[in-house]
């Protein structure tokens, strides 16, 4: 059996500028933040990012790494508007493919099923059609004759997701209330990298409730053990969102934030800087 464990640096070494990158999680929830931070330490840029956007999008946008964003929103959840996404949009820093949440989900399903599109009852009548002139419609061949939007497959070169547990083979488990769409991201990508809070040893899933084993090894290229690797987004039940730190992220000028927390050589230096900040403000 293939041992797929990697460091964040080894994952990022397999990514390249100009690629289409899917990022799992949702808003400020279980985002693969350690992998995004590793990406920020690399020279990889000019990305097309596909995401139910949160601070993953904000960080990459602030660092100027996004050429095109495909998303229905970007939010920090407890802070409705993602400030760096917002600033980048208002500065015209990247192209945006803005589609509805359900269109996005069906785009993932289409890609995972190797279909060119799926019909969706969403988008018609809205300005999603105006701002995406490439979107086409499809008409039912049956009696109803209804017209739908043909949402194109959201196929990606690589996907990054974060789960609670994984084994060395790439099987991964979520333990919180919501799987989000991480299995679809992995299935929709040519290569997929899973970071996890904790690696379990072979056989470690023997007692798992099977439905929690969300991501299968056949759809995973690399596995990274990254404790606190979704920080500052939530990763329940391992931990909730770090609200004070998220607030700091949202209110600190980007250069200052990046210099203090993102300039170190590795993930460990980030986690130490966060810990030092928490001790300072305690």
């Amino acid at each position, binding site marked *: 059996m293939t041992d797929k464990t990697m460091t964040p640096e080894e994952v990022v070494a397999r990514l390249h500028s100009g690629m289409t990158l899917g990022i799992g999680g*949702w808003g400020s929830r279980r985002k693969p933040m350690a992998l995004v931070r590793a990406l920020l330490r690399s020279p990889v840029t000019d990305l097309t990012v596909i995401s139910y*956007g949160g601070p993953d999008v904000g960080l990459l946008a602030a660092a100027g790494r996004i050429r095109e964003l495909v*998303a*229905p*929103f*970007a*939010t920090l959840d407890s802070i*409705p*508007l993602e400030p760096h*996404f*917002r600033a980048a*949009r*208002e500065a*015209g820093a990247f192209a945006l493919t*803005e*589609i*509805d*949440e*359900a*269109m996005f*989900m069906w785009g993932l399903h289409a890609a995972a099923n190797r279909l060119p599109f799926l019909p*969706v*009852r*969403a*988008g*018609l*009548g*809205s*300005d*999603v059609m*105006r*701002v995406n002139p490439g979107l086409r419609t499809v008409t039912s061949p049956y009696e109803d004759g*209804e*017209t739908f939007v043909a949402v194109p497959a959201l196929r990606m070169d690589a996907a990054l997701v974060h789960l609670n547990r994984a084994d060395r083979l790439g099987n991964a488990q979520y333990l919180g*209330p*919501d*799987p*989000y*769409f991480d299995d679809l991201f992995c299935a929709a990508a040519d290569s997929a990298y899973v970071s996890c809070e904790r690696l379990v040893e072979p056989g470690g899933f023997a007692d798992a409730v099977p439905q929690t084993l969300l991501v299968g090894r056949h759809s995973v290229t690399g596995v990274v053990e990254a404790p606190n690797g979704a920080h500052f987004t939530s990763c329940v039940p391992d931990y909730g969102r770090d609200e004070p730190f998220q607030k700091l992220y949202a209110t600190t000028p980007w250069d200052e934030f990046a210099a203090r927390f993102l300039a170190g050589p590795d993930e460990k230096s980030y986690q130490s800087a966060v810990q030092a900040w928490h001790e300072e403000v305690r």
Partner: protein
Amino acid sequence: MTSQALVVSRAEYCVIACAEAWRGDGEVLASPMGLIPSLGARLARRTFAPDLLLTDGEATLVGADGAAEGWLPYRRHLTMVTGGRRHVMMGASQLDRFGNQNISCIGDWAAPARQLLGVRGAPVNTLNNPVSYWVPRHSPRVFVPEVDMVCGVGYDRAAAAGARYHRLPRVVSDLAVLDFATPDHRMRLASLHPGVTVEQVRAATGFELALPDDVPYTRDPTPEELHLIREVLDPEGRRDGEVRG
């Protein structure tokens, strides 16, 4: 109960007006976005709409006492939307006379003056299940002749698109209840919250509203409803932080 307790605040009228949105909906998911709609949905569930489904705001369906009764992660939530067994009350940064709604950005979409949330689920919501709106500050900046980006689809565009399941039951603001019960589905003043005048609503609306001959007032809460709002659902009075007066 003292007479003092029966002085109903504006926020409490707003909760009642939001609750009424779900009257008669039966066994569907009530999806309130924001504090006042959330109080309204929970009030409806505890009184006249006991079959409504509610979530904890995350992925769990909960009973009136907060105990789990089901699982609703985002992917299944989207099936509730497209299956139609849901009535959402969304916010609106802009809203026009036919109910077209914008939460995406202000200004030219290609170079927005102010980036907001993005379209989120407004397109899929409006084409699949009833969508009501909550506007905590009724003003001409929200009620505009034309929205900058159509996220939620209004009646004129829904008709043009042949949408089968489109319905906008009501818009609740801090001043009034509005609906689209006119022959061409233009927005109409349905009721005023007590203490508000027709003139006030007209001045705060950036287009001409249809007006019935007699505009009723939003109904009073019952003593039981007031008790539930004040003692059970919102004992800290957070509602008064969203709507004053």
